[in-house]
């Protein structure tokens, strides 16, 4: 090069300035400019700030690095909505500092887990996930039940976040464990959006009697599905745990079908989104097999 002396590559200060401006252009357009727009700070009308117990739970969720395996955002894609529920809205995350959307689903998305299961499910599943899903790779978090909430940190958090709280809320924390806190946090996730079952089976369309009645294959397939999804709540041998034992259901075949398909608000998730009608009848057959004895 002939004009080395005048080139920018011979002037370190000028070079540094130009390089800095170059990287700041994209930074401004995609990061600083959006920050000044209202669309980046939306809030759903019925979104509530975290309670002291929920905030303590969120802190524990962060401490344990749950985000390494669980996302908290449902994409507006058919399969995502089918599996998890309504897609995530921007206004749901107003109080999230930081966001916990995550980047990896080694475990399922948790954006709509609030209210999907009863509290007992979370207590038992956190302590021993393998009792629910035999081959689950989730670590056991039983130790949370033996640890008291760090009240000092929770109060400091409430203060800096400007979340209003009452002294009796803090008093109540004293008797709570970290397990109580994380369950409280999980149970409020995604609840600002009114819950709607994505797939509901119309009761009128369900046969009174199982079309698979008397088929041994159906019982076997039902048992396989049961082992996969149901043992946590109903017990290894359907002896009952969080949910009832099968020996005493007292429900008709049609009622069983509708229950498995559509679930029971706050007690049992519905399975119509991930089991075909045939699979649900298989499960009904398996449940029925306990009655005969």
């Amino acid at each position: 090069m002939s004009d080395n002396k005048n080139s920018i590559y011979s002037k370190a200060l000028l070079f540094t300035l130009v390089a800095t401006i170059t990287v700041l252009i994209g930074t401004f357009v995609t990061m600083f400019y959006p920050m000044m727009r209202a669309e980046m700070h939306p809030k759903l009308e019925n979104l509530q700030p975290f309670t002291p117990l929920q905030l303590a739970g969120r802190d524990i969720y962060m401490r344990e690095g749950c985000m390494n395996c669980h996302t908290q955002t449902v994409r507006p894609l058919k399969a995502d909505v089918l599996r998890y529920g309504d897609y995530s809205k921007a206004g749901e995350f107003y109080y999230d500092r930081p966001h916990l959307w995550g980047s990896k689903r080694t475990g399922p998305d948790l954006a709509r887990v609030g209210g999907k299961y009863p509290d007992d499910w979370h207590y038992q599943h956190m302590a021993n996930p393998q009792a629910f899903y035999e081959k689950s790779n989730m670590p056991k978090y039983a130790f949370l039940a033996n640890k008291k909430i760090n009240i000092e940190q929770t109060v400091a958090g409430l203060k800096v976040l400007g979340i209003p709280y009452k002294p009796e809320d803090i008093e109540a924390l004293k008797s709570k464990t970290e397990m109580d806190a994380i369950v409280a946090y999980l149970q409020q996730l995604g609840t600002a959006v009114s819950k709607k079952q994505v797939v509901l089976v119309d009761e009128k369309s369900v046969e009174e009697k199982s079309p698979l009645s008397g088929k041994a294959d159906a019982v076997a397939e039902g048992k396989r599905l049961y082992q996969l999804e149901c043992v946590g709540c109903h017990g290894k041998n359907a002896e009952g745990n969080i949910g009832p034992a099968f020996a005493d259901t007292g429900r008709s075949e049609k009622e069983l079908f509708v229950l498995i398909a559509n679930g029971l608000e706050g007690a049992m998730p519905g399975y119509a989104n991930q089991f075909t009608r045939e699979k649900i009848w298989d499960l009904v057959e398996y449940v029925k097999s306990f009655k005969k004895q």
Partner: protein
Amino acid sequence: MNEYQYDYQTVKGFIVSCLFWGVIGLVIGLLISIQLWNSDFNFGEYLSFGRLRTFHTNVLAYGLGIGAEFGIFYYLVIRLTKRPLLFPKLARFHLWLFNVGITLAAWTLLMGYSQNLEYAEFEWPIDIAVVILWVIFAINVMGTIFKRKEEEMYISLWYIIATVVTVAILYIVNNLSIPATLFKSYHLFAGVNSANVEWWYGHNAVGFLFTTPILAMFYYFLPKSTGLPIYSHRLSIISFWSLIFAYLWTGAHHLVYTPLPDWIQTLGIAFTLFLIAPSWGSVVNGYFTVESDWSVMKNKYLTKFFIAGITFYGLQTIQGPSQGIRVISSLIHYTDWVPGHVHMGTMGWVTMVICASIYYIIPHIYKTEIYSVKLANIHFWIVLIGQLMFSITMWITGIQQGAMWKMTNPDGSLKYTFIETVTANYPYWQMRTIAGVIFVVGMLFFLYNIFMTIQKGKKELAAKLAAANA
């Protein structure tokens, strides 16, 4: 020729330190790879996956990656400016502070003190230490460049300047948080905005910690170890400016299909696709440099490290942008495809070039030859096999996972329950552990070779001194 008394003590110190942290990070990597297919390998609260995965990424990124960059940059800067460091004692202090900092940082992650911002997990006291560390480094490197004896700055110095400036901006902005206690803070930004700031940071941390610094090494050590000049200076110029310009627009490709406003996502995707061009500018430049005499691939053992490295960089920068496209993102996002992608970059490009740079520097500092070219070749082939096996198994299982999540029955219900999509990964995750073991074995060959080269250099120096005194 310059005969300055270059102070290489700090360079050596950083190289030894980064290798130490590298071993720790790799071993923990093996452990968490096992935890993914057998939960019994989670040992209590401190050694469970949730904390150790963060430990793994941070110790390798900050301990191995940035540690190596500090050391190699100090070497490059004094060579390219033809003068000693401006503040050698400050550099020595930097080295000690670095090791103390990583030790403390690693401890805080095991304790669960985490901001939960990916690749920016350190809590605020550690963040302050990192900023101090970076300022010390910047003063020395920039000061030395400003006071240089060589008028024109070589390509590597451009990339070093861009790294120093951009990392400072990224790190400070994203880590702004409101401290509640000594070990707990909350992000200054909330919700959607928090996500946008975090991935503006997260993607560019990859860009300015694992792309520009490695290119700085590549542009210096490829010509040095082959004896061939860089093919095109003009191409280097175009690649440099378009790379650092486009990178900062792309963070939102990590947030495709999230509630982030669509226009930011689309802009991110568009610039991500554009980024192929400057990335391949460097790839082409590398290939054509060796094109003038391919025999160096055979005769100069380091050439293949750089050519394999730049090849993986090329593949990485094709794969990455394609992942940003909405339709592909919808299949592979959140799956194991992504760790497969990341590890091609970190194992195939970053580590390959860092190792090769260290192979060049250590004999040079100790005024000797490499202990064993044969061992270096064995190292090369083993890590190559380990890395390919790692990435390919992850890509396969990632596609399988994404497809299983999406598949529906004729009646519209999902075909697989979530746990079925998890356990289907297990055979691949087991293969990945094997691949990881292979890679680590390869790295042990590297460590041994470097250790023996240092010993050899010391012995030769002692012999020379003895001869001089005799």
